[in-house]
Protein backbone atom coordinates (compact mmCIF):
# COMPACT_ATOMS: atom_id res chain seq x y z
CA UNK A 1 0.00 0.00 0.00
CA UNK A 2 1.57 3.26 -1.02
CA UNK A 3 0.26 6.61 0.02
CA UNK A 4 -0.93 8.85 -2.75
CA UNK A 5 1.16 11.62 -1.33
CA UNK A 6 3.61 13.03 -3.82
CA UNK A 7 5.69 14.50 -1.08
CA UNK A 8 7.83 16.85 -3.00
CA UNK A 9 6.17 17.40 -6.32
CA UNK A 10 3.18 19.30 -4.92
CA UNK A 11 3.20 22.83 -6.18
CA UNK A 12 2.94 24.49 -2.81
CA UNK A 13 6.40 23.82 -1.47
CA UNK A 14 9.17 25.71 -3.19
CA UNK A 15 11.86 23.37 -4.41
CA UNK A 16 14.92 23.88 -2.30
CA UNK A 17 17.15 20.97 -3.24
CA UNK A 18 17.25 18.98 -6.45
CA UNK A 19 15.64 15.68 -5.67
CA UNK A 20 18.04 12.83 -5.19
CA UNK A 21 17.78 9.71 -3.07
CA UNK A 22 20.35 11.07 -0.65
CA UNK A 23 18.77 14.46 -0.08
CA UNK A 24 19.45 15.45 3.50
CA UNK A 25 16.17 16.57 4.96
CA UNK A 26 17.17 17.16 8.55
CA UNK A 27 20.56 18.40 9.58
CA UNK A 28 20.83 19.19 13.28
CA UNK A 29 24.28 20.08 14.51
CA UNK A 30 25.72 20.28 17.98
CA UNK A 31 22.51 21.07 19.76
CA UNK A 32 22.82 22.09 23.38
CA UNK A 33 20.24 22.89 25.97
CA UNK A 34 20.38 23.40 29.71
CA UNK A 35 17.83 24.60 32.20
CA UNK A 36 18.24 26.44 35.46
CA UNK A 37 21.17 28.22 36.93
CA UNK A 38 24.03 27.54 39.32
CA UNK A 39 23.55 24.48 41.44
CA UNK A 40 20.19 23.73 39.91
CA UNK A 41 21.58 23.72 36.42
CA UNK A 42 20.55 20.70 34.44
CA UNK A 43 22.09 19.89 31.09
CA UNK A 44 19.31 18.24 29.16
CA UNK A 45 21.13 18.04 25.87
CA UNK A 46 24.91 18.33 25.70
CA UNK A 47 25.95 17.84 22.11
CA UNK A 48 23.54 16.18 19.77
CA UNK A 49 23.89 16.05 16.02
CA UNK A 50 21.46 14.18 13.80
CA UNK A 51 21.10 13.78 10.09
CA UNK A 52 18.20 12.20 8.29
CA UNK A 53 17.80 11.71 4.55
CA UNK A 54 14.55 11.70 2.66
CA UNK A 55 12.69 8.42 3.11
CA UNK A 56 14.83 7.38 6.03
CA UNK A 57 13.56 6.44 9.47
CA UNK A 58 15.82 7.25 12.39
CA UNK A 59 14.91 5.73 15.74
CA UNK A 60 16.00 7.91 18.60
CA UNK A 61 16.36 5.82 21.73
CA UNK A 62 17.36 6.51 25.26
CA UNK A 63 16.35 6.14 28.89
CA UNK A 64 13.92 8.59 30.48
CA UNK A 65 15.38 12.02 30.95
CA UNK A 66 18.11 11.40 28.40
CA UNK A 67 17.13 14.39 26.30
CA UNK A 68 14.99 12.85 23.56
CA UNK A 69 11.95 15.06 23.89
CA UNK A 70 14.02 18.21 24.33
CA UNK A 71 15.93 17.39 21.16
CA UNK A 72 12.77 16.77 19.20
CA UNK A 73 11.30 20.02 20.41
CA UNK A 74 14.44 21.90 19.48
CA UNK A 75 14.18 20.47 16.00
CA UNK A 76 10.55 21.52 15.81
CA UNK A 77 11.26 25.07 16.90
CA UNK A 78 9.40 24.71 20.19
CA UNK A 79 12.43 24.99 22.45
CA UNK A 80 15.21 27.42 21.75
CA UNK A 81 18.64 25.69 21.77
CA UNK A 82 21.48 27.28 23.72
CA UNK A 83 23.84 26.40 20.91
CA UNK A 84 23.80 24.54 17.64
CA UNK A 85 21.86 24.76 14.46
CA UNK A 86 18.84 23.05 12.97
CA UNK A 87 18.27 22.87 9.27
CA UNK A 88 15.19 21.38 7.63
CA UNK A 89 15.51 21.36 3.85
CA UNK A 90 18.00 24.14 4.34
CA UNK A 91 15.72 26.29 6.50
CA UNK A 92 16.10 27.08 10.19
CA UNK A 93 12.84 26.64 12.13
CA UNK A 94 14.00 29.12 14.76
CA UNK A 95 14.64 31.87 12.27
CA UNK A 96 12.53 31.16 9.22
CA UNK A 97 8.89 30.39 9.77
CA UNK A 98 8.70 28.77 6.32
CA UNK A 99 10.74 25.92 7.79
CA UNK A 100 7.68 25.00 9.84
CA UNK A 101 5.78 24.19 6.66
CA UNK A 102 8.18 21.31 6.14
CA UNK A 103 7.69 19.73 9.52
CA UNK A 104 4.87 17.69 10.95
CA UNK A 105 4.92 16.50 14.53
CA UNK A 106 2.94 14.10 16.64
CA UNK A 107 3.98 14.77 20.19
CA UNK A 108 3.61 12.45 23.06
CA UNK A 109 0.36 11.67 24.69
CA UNK A 110 -3.30 12.08 24.01
CA UNK A 111 -2.87 15.34 22.29
CA UNK A 112 -2.59 17.24 19.10
CA UNK A 113 -6.31 17.16 18.35
CA UNK A 114 -9.46 19.08 19.20
CA UNK A 115 -11.76 16.68 20.98
CA UNK A 116 -14.99 18.37 20.10
CA UNK A 117 -14.25 18.46 16.40
CA UNK A 118 -14.55 15.58 13.95
CA UNK A 119 -11.51 14.09 12.16
CA UNK A 120 -12.33 15.94 8.96
CA UNK A 121 -12.79 19.22 10.83
CA UNK A 122 -9.51 18.71 12.64
CA UNK A 123 -7.67 18.08 9.38
CA UNK A 124 -9.23 21.12 7.75
CA UNK A 125 -8.45 23.32 10.71
CA UNK A 126 -4.82 22.30 11.07
CA UNK A 127 -4.43 22.43 7.32
CA UNK A 128 -5.48 26.06 7.47
CA UNK A 129 -3.08 26.64 10.31
CA UNK A 130 -0.29 25.30 8.10
CA UNK A 131 -1.33 27.50 5.20
CA UNK A 132 -2.90 24.78 3.12
CA UNK A 133 -5.82 26.17 1.06
CA UNK A 134 -9.17 25.00 2.43
CA UNK A 135 -10.33 23.01 -0.56
CA UNK A 136 -7.03 21.17 -0.87
CA UNK A 137 -6.96 20.44 2.85
CA UNK A 138 -10.36 18.88 2.55
CA UNK A 139 -9.35 16.76 -0.45
CA UNK A 140 -6.19 15.55 1.19
CA UNK A 141 -8.14 15.01 4.36
CA UNK A 142 -10.54 12.64 2.65
CA UNK A 143 -7.62 10.79 1.08
CA UNK A 144 -5.72 10.48 4.31
CA UNK A 145 -8.74 9.34 6.27
CA UNK A 146 -9.40 6.72 3.61
CA UNK A 147 -5.79 5.59 3.71
CA UNK A 148 -5.76 5.39 7.49
CA UNK A 149 -9.03 3.51 7.69
CA UNK A 150 -10.89 6.33 9.38
CA UNK A 151 -13.36 7.21 6.64
CA UNK A 152 -16.44 5.93 8.38
CA UNK A 153 -15.53 7.89 11.50
CA UNK A 154 -14.90 11.18 9.80
CA UNK A 155 -17.97 12.86 11.21
CA UNK A 156 -17.56 11.52 14.74
CA UNK A 157 -16.18 13.92 17.36
CA UNK A 158 -12.68 12.89 18.31
CA UNK A 159 -13.54 12.31 21.94
CA UNK A 160 -15.68 9.37 20.87
CA UNK A 161 -12.87 7.64 18.99
CA UNK A 162 -10.62 4.98 20.43
CA UNK A 163 -7.07 5.78 21.43
CA UNK A 164 -5.68 3.99 18.41
CA UNK A 165 -7.90 5.93 16.01
CA UNK A 166 -6.98 9.20 17.70
CA UNK A 167 -3.33 8.43 17.23
CA UNK A 168 -3.81 7.59 13.57
CA UNK A 169 -5.73 10.80 13.14
CA UNK A 170 -2.96 12.77 14.85
CA UNK A 171 -0.55 11.36 12.29
CA UNK A 172 -2.92 12.20 9.45
CA UNK A 173 -3.25 15.76 10.73
CA UNK A 174 0.53 16.05 10.84
CA UNK A 175 0.68 15.05 7.18
CA UNK A 176 -1.96 17.30 5.65
CA UNK A 177 0.58 19.89 4.59
CA UNK A 178 2.86 17.26 3.08
CA UNK A 179 5.87 17.81 5.30
CA UNK A 180 9.26 16.45 4.34
CA UNK A 181 10.11 15.70 7.95
CA UNK A 182 7.86 13.94 10.43
CA UNK A 183 8.64 13.96 14.14
CA UNK A 184 6.99 11.17 16.09
CA UNK A 185 7.35 11.15 19.86
CA UNK A 186 6.35 7.72 21.18
CA UNK A 187 3.80 7.02 18.47
CA UNK A 188 2.80 3.58 19.73
CA UNK A 189 2.66 4.36 23.42
CA UNK A 190 -0.58 3.30 25.01
CA UNK A 191 -1.88 1.60 21.92
CA UNK A 192 -3.14 -1.95 21.82
CA UNK A 193 -1.51 -4.52 19.60
CA UNK A 194 -3.74 -3.99 16.60
CA UNK A 195 -3.49 -0.22 16.67
CA UNK A 196 0.26 -0.49 17.15
CA UNK A 197 0.53 -2.65 14.08
CA UNK A 198 -1.48 -0.22 11.99
CA UNK A 199 0.65 2.70 13.09
CA UNK A 200 3.80 0.76 12.27
CA UNK A 201 2.54 0.02 8.79
CA UNK A 202 1.64 3.67 8.33
CA UNK A 203 5.09 4.81 9.37
CA UNK A 204 6.69 2.49 6.85
CA UNK A 205 4.43 3.77 4.11
CA UNK A 206 5.06 7.38 4.95
CA UNK A 207 8.80 6.79 4.78
CA UNK A 208 8.36 4.98 1.48
CA UNK A 209 6.61 8.07 0.12
CA UNK A 210 9.79 10.06 0.71
CA UNK A 211 9.25 11.61 4.11
CA UNK A 212 12.14 11.65 6.58
CA UNK A 213 11.04 10.39 9.96
CA UNK A 214 12.52 10.93 13.40
CA UNK A 215 10.94 8.53 15.81
CA UNK A 216 11.44 8.23 19.55
CA UNK A 217 10.22 5.21 21.39
CA UNK A 218 10.75 3.06 24.43
CA UNK A 219 9.46 0.05 22.61
CA UNK A 220 12.60 -1.38 21.14
CA UNK A 221 10.83 -3.94 19.01
CA UNK A 222 9.06 -1.08 17.28
CA UNK A 223 12.37 0.69 16.75
CA UNK A 224 13.93 -2.46 15.40
CA UNK A 225 11.09 -3.07 12.97
CA UNK A 226 10.73 0.45 11.67
CA UNK A 227 14.11 2.11 11.66
CA UNK A 228 16.86 2.29 9.08
CA UNK A 229 19.21 3.87 11.56
CA UNK A 230 19.38 4.11 15.30
CA UNK A 231 20.74 6.87 17.51
CA UNK A 232 21.05 6.14 21.20
CA UNK A 233 21.19 9.03 23.60
CA UNK A 234 22.21 8.97 27.22
CA UNK A 235 22.47 11.94 29.56
CA UNK A 236 22.27 14.38 26.73
CA UNK A 237 24.82 12.78 24.44
CA UNK A 238 24.66 10.37 21.56
CA UNK A 239 26.53 7.20 22.44
CA UNK A 240 25.81 5.24 19.29
CA UNK A 241 24.58 6.03 15.83
CA UNK A 242 24.49 3.41 13.14
CA UNK A 243 22.32 1.65 10.64
CA UNK A 244 20.03 -0.63 12.63
CA UNK A 245 21.07 -3.96 11.19
CA UNK A 246 24.76 -3.07 11.62
CA UNK A 247 24.28 -2.24 15.26
CA UNK A 248 22.43 -5.46 15.88
CA UNK A 249 25.04 -7.42 13.96
CA UNK A 250 27.76 -5.89 16.09
CA UNK A 251 26.18 -7.29 19.19
CA UNK A 252 25.12 -10.56 17.71
CA UNK A 253 27.17 -13.66 17.85
CA UNK A 254 27.00 -16.33 15.19
CA UNK A 255 26.49 -19.13 17.69
CA UNK A 256 23.56 -21.50 17.45
CA UNK A 257 21.20 -22.54 20.18
CA UNK A 258 19.43 -25.86 19.65
CA UNK A 259 16.50 -26.95 21.76
CA UNK A 260 15.76 -30.68 21.75
CA UNK A 261 12.76 -30.73 23.96
CA UNK A 262 14.11 -33.67 25.93
CA UNK A 263 17.27 -34.47 27.87
CA UNK A 264 20.31 -35.46 25.82
CA UNK A 265 21.96 -38.72 26.88
CA UNK A 266 25.55 -38.78 28.06
CA UNK A 267 26.96 -40.48 24.98
CA UNK A 268 25.62 -37.83 22.66
CA UNK A 269 26.62 -35.13 25.13
CA UNK A 270 30.23 -36.30 25.06
CA UNK A 271 30.25 -36.35 21.29
CA UNK A 272 28.83 -32.86 21.16
CA UNK A 273 31.42 -31.60 23.60
CA UNK A 274 34.13 -33.17 21.50
CA UNK A 275 32.87 -31.11 18.59
CA UNK A 276 33.07 -27.92 20.66
CA UNK A 277 29.50 -27.49 21.80
CA UNK A 278 28.12 -27.23 25.33
CA UNK A 279 25.13 -29.15 26.59
CA UNK A 280 22.84 -27.84 29.29
CA UNK A 281 19.71 -29.86 29.93
CA UNK A 282 17.72 -29.90 26.73
CA UNK A 283 19.81 -27.25 25.03
CA UNK A 284 22.97 -27.26 23.00
CA UNK A 285 25.04 -24.16 22.47
CA UNK A 286 27.40 -24.40 19.53
CA UNK A 287 29.65 -21.84 17.87
CA UNK A 288 31.77 -23.90 15.53
CA UNK A 289 31.50 -24.64 11.85
CA UNK A 290 30.17 -28.19 11.96
CA UNK A 291 26.51 -27.54 12.43
CA UNK A 292 25.44 -30.47 10.26
CA UNK A 293 27.77 -32.90 12.06
CA UNK A 294 26.22 -31.74 15.28
CA UNK A 295 22.75 -32.40 13.93
CA UNK A 296 23.85 -35.87 12.89
CA UNK A 297 24.92 -36.54 16.45
CA UNK A 298 21.61 -35.38 17.74
CA UNK A 299 19.62 -37.59 15.34
CA UNK A 300 16.92 -38.97 16.02
CA UNK A 301 16.17 -36.61 18.84
CA UNK A 302 13.35 -34.19 18.05
CA UNK A 303 14.57 -30.68 17.26
CA UNK A 304 12.25 -28.15 18.80
CA UNK A 305 14.12 -25.06 17.75
CA UNK A 306 17.34 -23.93 16.12
CA UNK A 307 18.10 -20.31 16.73
CA UNK A 308 21.02 -18.11 15.87
CA UNK A 309 22.32 -16.01 18.73
CA UNK A 310 21.09 -12.84 17.17
CA UNK A 311 20.87 -10.00 19.58
CA UNK A 312 17.85 -7.81 19.47
CA UNK A 313 17.81 -4.11 20.00
CA UNK A 314 16.97 -4.58 23.67
CA UNK A 315 20.22 -6.44 24.25
CA UNK A 316 22.14 -3.80 22.34
CA UNK A 317 20.49 -0.97 24.17
CA UNK A 318 20.95 -2.43 27.62
CA UNK A 319 24.58 -3.26 27.13
CA UNK A 320 25.34 0.17 25.72
CA UNK A 321 23.58 1.94 28.54
CA UNK A 322 25.38 -0.17 31.12
CA UNK A 323 28.78 0.24 29.57
CA UNK A 324 28.60 3.98 29.28
CA UNK A 325 28.63 5.55 32.71
Amino acid at each position, binding site marked *: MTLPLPMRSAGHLPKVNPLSPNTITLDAQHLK*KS*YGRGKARFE*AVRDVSLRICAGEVLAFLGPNGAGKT*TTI*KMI*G*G*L*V*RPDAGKVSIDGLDPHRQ*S*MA*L*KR*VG*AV*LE*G*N*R*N*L*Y*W*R*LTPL*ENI*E*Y*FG*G*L*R*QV*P*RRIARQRGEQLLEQFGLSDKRKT*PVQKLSRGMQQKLAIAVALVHQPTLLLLDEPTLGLDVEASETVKVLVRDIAAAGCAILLTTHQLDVAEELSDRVAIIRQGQIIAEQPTHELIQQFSGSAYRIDCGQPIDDLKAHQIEALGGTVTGNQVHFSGNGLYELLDILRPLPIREIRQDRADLTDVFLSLIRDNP
Partner: protein
Amino acid sequence: MLNLLIGEIKRTWIQFIRYPSEIIGGIIIITTVFYGLFVSAQYMAGPAINFGERLDSVVVGYVLWTLALYIVNDIAFNIQSEAQTGTLEQIFLSPFAAPKIFFARAVASLALRMTIIVLILFILMGITGSQLSFPVGLIFPLLTLLMAAYGLAFVMGSCALVFKRVQQILPIFQFALLFLLAAPTEDWSGRARLIANFLPMLPSTGLLRDLMARGEGLDISLLGVALANGAAYFGLGLLVFGWAERQAKRKGILGGY
Protein backbone atom coordinates in the same frame (compact mmCIF):
# COMPACT_ATOMS: atom_id res chain seq x y z
CA MET B 1 -4.63 35.79 7.16
CA LEU B 2 -8.19 35.71 5.95
CA ASN B 3 -8.05 31.96 5.66
CA LEU B 4 -6.77 31.79 9.19
CA LEU B 5 -9.67 33.89 10.36
CA ILE B 6 -12.20 31.77 8.52
CA GLY B 7 -10.66 28.62 9.97
CA GLU B 8 -10.90 30.02 13.47
CA ILE B 9 -14.46 31.19 13.01
CA LYS B 10 -15.44 27.75 11.79
CA ARG B 11 -13.82 26.08 14.72
CA THR B 12 -15.30 28.40 17.32
CA TRP B 13 -18.72 28.15 15.76
CA ILE B 14 -18.67 24.34 15.57
CA GLN B 15 -17.59 24.03 19.17
CA PHE B 16 -20.42 26.29 20.20
CA ILE B 17 -23.11 24.63 18.14
CA ARG B 18 -22.17 21.20 19.33
CA TYR B 19 -21.91 22.02 23.00
CA PRO B 20 -23.97 25.14 23.62
CA SER B 21 -24.75 24.47 27.26
CA GLU B 22 -21.75 26.34 28.63
CA ILE B 23 -22.63 29.53 26.85
CA ILE B 24 -26.32 29.36 27.50
CA GLY B 25 -25.56 28.69 31.16
CA GLY B 26 -23.35 31.75 31.15
CA ILE B 27 -26.08 33.96 29.75
CA ILE B 28 -28.54 32.76 32.35
CA ILE B 29 -26.12 33.39 35.19
CA ILE B 30 -25.14 36.85 34.06
CA THR B 31 -28.69 38.07 33.58
CA THR B 32 -29.91 36.46 36.77
CA VAL B 33 -27.16 38.00 38.87
CA PHE B 34 -27.89 41.42 37.52
CA TYR B 35 -31.57 41.03 38.02
CA GLY B 36 -30.94 39.98 41.61
CA LEU B 37 -28.86 43.08 42.21
CA PHE B 38 -31.44 45.22 40.49
CA VAL B 39 -34.26 43.92 42.58
CA SER B 40 -32.25 44.48 45.78
CA ALA B 41 -31.48 48.03 44.71
CA GLN B 42 -35.14 48.66 43.98
CA TYR B 43 -36.07 47.31 47.35
CA MET B 44 -33.58 49.56 49.08
CA ALA B 45 -34.62 52.65 47.18
CA GLY B 46 -38.32 52.14 47.70
CA PRO B 47 -41.23 51.65 45.27
CA ALA B 48 -41.68 55.20 44.07
CA ILE B 49 -38.20 55.78 42.78
CA ASN B 50 -37.55 55.57 39.09
CA PHE B 51 -33.88 55.09 38.44
CA GLY B 52 -33.88 56.67 35.05
CA GLU B 53 -30.52 57.60 33.70
CA ARG B 54 -28.57 56.12 36.57
CA LEU B 55 -29.98 52.68 35.89
CA ASP B 56 -29.08 53.04 32.25
CA SER B 57 -25.52 53.94 33.18
CA VAL B 58 -25.21 50.95 35.45
CA VAL B 59 -26.65 48.59 32.86
CA VAL B 60 -24.17 49.84 30.29
CA GLY B 61 -21.33 49.55 32.80
CA TYR B 62 -22.33 46.02 33.77
CA VAL B 63 -22.67 44.78 30.22
CA LEU B 64 -19.37 46.34 29.23
CA TRP B 65 -17.77 44.68 32.23
CA THR B 66 -19.10 41.32 31.07
CA LEU B 67 -17.77 41.97 27.58
CA ALA B 68 -14.40 43.11 28.84
CA LEU B 69 -14.15 40.09 31.08
CA TYR B 70 -14.88 37.70 28.22
CA ILE B 71 -12.26 39.33 26.08
CA VAL B 72 -9.51 39.69 28.64
CA ASN B 73 -9.83 36.12 29.81
CA ASP B 74 -10.26 34.71 26.35
CA ILE B 75 -6.65 34.34 25.29
CA ALA B 76 -5.42 33.21 28.70
CA PHE B 77 -8.12 30.55 29.03
CA ASN B 78 -7.50 29.43 25.51
CA ILE B 79 -3.80 28.98 26.17
CA GLN B 80 -4.41 27.17 29.43
CA SER B 81 -6.92 24.70 28.06
CA GLU B 82 -4.84 24.09 24.96
CA ALA B 83 -1.79 23.45 27.11
CA GLN B 84 -3.79 20.84 28.96
CA THR B 85 -5.05 19.07 25.88
CA GLY B 86 -1.69 19.39 24.18
CA THR B 87 -2.77 21.31 21.11
CA LEU B 88 -0.81 24.39 22.22
CA GLU B 89 2.40 23.03 20.78
CA GLN B 90 0.68 22.33 17.49
CA ILE B 91 -0.24 26.00 17.33
CA PHE B 92 3.35 27.04 17.78
CA LEU B 93 4.35 24.62 15.03
CA SER B 94 2.45 26.72 12.55
CA PRO B 95 4.31 28.98 10.12
CA PHE B 96 1.91 31.75 11.21
CA ALA B 97 3.24 33.87 14.05
CA ALA B 98 1.62 33.01 17.38
CA PRO B 99 0.22 36.49 18.09
CA LYS B 100 -1.50 36.39 14.69
CA ILE B 101 -3.14 33.08 15.48
CA PHE B 102 -4.33 34.13 18.92
CA PHE B 103 -5.60 37.39 17.57
CA ALA B 104 -7.54 35.61 14.82
CA ARG B 105 -9.01 33.35 17.49
CA ALA B 106 -9.92 36.28 19.63
CA VAL B 107 -11.66 37.98 16.71
CA ALA B 108 -13.50 34.79 15.83
CA SER B 109 -14.80 34.39 19.35
CA LEU B 110 -15.57 38.09 19.48
CA ALA B 111 -18.26 37.65 16.86
CA LEU B 112 -19.88 35.04 19.05
CA ARG B 113 -19.41 37.10 22.20
CA MET B 114 -20.89 40.24 20.73
CA THR B 115 -24.02 38.33 19.78
CA ILE B 116 -24.29 37.05 23.31
CA ILE B 117 -23.63 40.46 24.80
CA VAL B 118 -26.30 42.10 22.71
CA LEU B 119 -28.68 39.37 23.76
CA ILE B 120 -27.85 39.95 27.41
CA LEU B 121 -28.26 43.66 26.95
CA PHE B 122 -31.73 43.30 25.54
CA ILE B 123 -32.74 40.85 28.22
CA LEU B 124 -31.58 43.28 30.89
CA MET B 125 -33.34 46.16 29.23
CA GLY B 126 -36.46 44.06 29.17
CA ILE B 127 -36.45 42.96 32.77
CA THR B 128 -35.31 46.24 34.32
CA GLY B 129 -37.12 48.64 32.07
CA SER B 130 -33.91 50.46 31.27
CA GLN B 131 -33.91 52.43 28.05
CA LEU B 132 -30.76 52.84 26.06
CA SER B 133 -30.07 54.57 22.81
CA PHE B 134 -28.02 52.95 20.09
CA PRO B 135 -26.54 55.67 17.92
CA VAL B 136 -24.34 54.58 15.05
CA GLY B 137 -21.45 56.55 16.51
CA LEU B 138 -21.09 54.08 19.35
CA ILE B 139 -19.05 51.92 17.02
CA PHE B 140 -16.04 54.15 17.54
CA PRO B 141 -15.69 54.08 21.29
CA LEU B 142 -16.62 50.40 21.15
CA LEU B 143 -13.67 49.76 18.88
CA THR B 144 -11.30 51.65 21.15
CA LEU B 145 -12.65 49.64 24.06
CA LEU B 146 -11.99 46.42 22.19
CA MET B 147 -8.45 47.49 21.38
CA ALA B 148 -7.63 48.16 25.01
CA ALA B 149 -9.36 44.96 26.10
CA TYR B 150 -7.41 42.87 23.60
CA GLY B 151 -4.21 44.48 24.78
CA LEU B 152 -4.99 43.29 28.27
CA ALA B 153 -6.01 39.92 26.88
CA PHE B 154 -2.55 39.51 25.39
CA VAL B 155 -0.98 40.47 28.70
CA MET B 156 -3.06 37.85 30.50
CA GLY B 157 -2.20 35.41 27.74
CA SER B 158 1.46 36.10 28.38
CA CYS B 159 0.96 35.23 32.05
CA ALA B 160 -0.73 32.00 31.03
CA LEU B 161 2.12 31.18 28.67
CA VAL B 162 4.90 31.80 31.14
CA PHE B 163 3.30 30.97 34.47
CA LYS B 164 0.87 28.34 33.23
CA ARG B 165 -1.73 28.86 35.93
CA VAL B 166 -3.71 32.00 35.89
CA GLN B 167 -6.71 30.92 37.92
CA GLN B 168 -5.42 32.68 40.98
CA ILE B 169 -4.96 36.07 39.36
CA LEU B 170 -8.18 36.15 37.42
CA PRO B 171 -10.68 36.71 40.26
CA ILE B 172 -8.68 39.67 41.50
CA PHE B 173 -8.64 41.01 38.02
CA GLN B 174 -12.34 40.49 37.65
CA PHE B 175 -13.15 42.73 40.56
CA ALA B 176 -10.57 45.34 39.74
CA LEU B 177 -12.20 45.50 36.35
CA LEU B 178 -15.67 45.79 37.82
CA PHE B 179 -14.63 48.74 39.90
CA LEU B 180 -12.95 50.35 36.94
CA LEU B 181 -15.93 50.00 34.70
CA ALA B 182 -18.63 50.79 37.22
CA ALA B 183 -17.10 54.02 38.43
CA PRO B 184 -18.48 57.00 36.51
CA THR B 185 -15.07 58.33 35.64
CA GLU B 186 -16.49 60.66 33.06
CA ASP B 187 -17.80 62.74 35.93
CA TRP B 188 -14.39 63.08 37.52
CA SER B 189 -12.15 66.04 36.90
CA GLY B 190 -8.63 67.22 37.48
CA ARG B 191 -5.99 64.74 38.48
CA ALA B 192 -8.42 61.89 39.05
CA ARG B 193 -9.60 62.33 35.50
CA LEU B 194 -6.07 62.26 34.22
CA ILE B 195 -5.36 58.99 35.97
CA ALA B 196 -8.61 57.59 34.66
CA ASN B 197 -7.49 58.34 31.12
CA PHE B 198 -4.38 56.27 31.60
CA LEU B 199 -6.17 53.24 32.93
CA PRO B 200 -7.21 50.72 30.32
CA MET B 201 -10.69 50.95 28.84
CA LEU B 202 -11.95 53.76 31.10
CA PRO B 203 -12.10 56.54 28.51
CA SER B 204 -13.96 54.24 26.11
CA THR B 205 -16.43 53.12 28.77
CA GLY B 206 -17.15 56.68 29.78
CA LEU B 207 -17.88 57.59 26.19
CA LEU B 208 -20.19 54.64 25.70
CA ARG B 209 -22.12 55.52 28.81
CA ASP B 210 -22.47 59.09 27.57
CA LEU B 211 -23.78 57.89 24.25
CA MET B 212 -26.03 55.08 25.31
CA ALA B 213 -27.30 56.06 28.74
CA ARG B 214 -27.27 59.82 28.65
CA GLY B 215 -28.01 60.27 24.99
CA GLU B 216 -25.19 62.74 24.50
CA GLY B 217 -23.31 63.29 21.29
CA LEU B 218 -19.88 61.94 20.48
CA ASP B 219 -17.13 64.14 21.84
CA ILE B 220 -14.27 63.95 19.36
CA SER B 221 -11.53 64.98 21.76
CA LEU B 222 -12.62 62.32 24.25
CA LEU B 223 -12.68 59.83 21.40
CA GLY B 224 -9.08 60.79 20.64
CA VAL B 225 -8.12 60.03 24.22
CA ALA B 226 -9.95 56.72 24.05
CA LEU B 227 -8.20 55.86 20.80
CA ALA B 228 -4.77 56.63 22.22
CA ASN B 229 -5.65 54.58 25.28
CA GLY B 230 -6.77 51.63 23.14
CA ALA B 231 -3.80 51.74 20.80
CA ALA B 232 -1.31 52.02 23.64
CA TYR B 233 -2.67 49.03 25.52
CA PHE B 234 -2.95 46.96 22.37
CA GLY B 235 0.65 47.70 21.49
CA LEU B 236 1.73 46.90 25.02
CA GLY B 237 -0.13 43.61 24.89
CA LEU B 238 1.57 42.52 21.68
CA LEU B 239 4.99 43.43 23.01
CA VAL B 240 4.49 41.54 26.24
CA PHE B 241 3.16 38.53 24.37
CA GLY B 242 6.15 38.46 22.06
CA TRP B 243 8.44 38.56 25.06
CA ALA B 244 6.47 35.79 26.78
CA GLU B 245 6.70 33.55 23.73
CA ARG B 246 10.48 33.93 23.63
CA GLN B 247 10.72 33.25 27.33
CA ALA B 248 8.60 30.14 27.06
CA LYS B 249 10.71 28.79 24.23
CA ARG B 250 13.90 29.52 26.06
CA LYS B 251 12.69 27.78 29.16
CA GLY B 252 11.21 24.96 27.15
CA ILE B 253 7.83 25.29 28.84
CA LEU B 254 5.70 25.97 25.82
CA GLY B 255 3.55 22.90 26.15
CA GLY B 256 3.44 22.36 29.87
CA TYR B 257 5.73 22.22 32.85
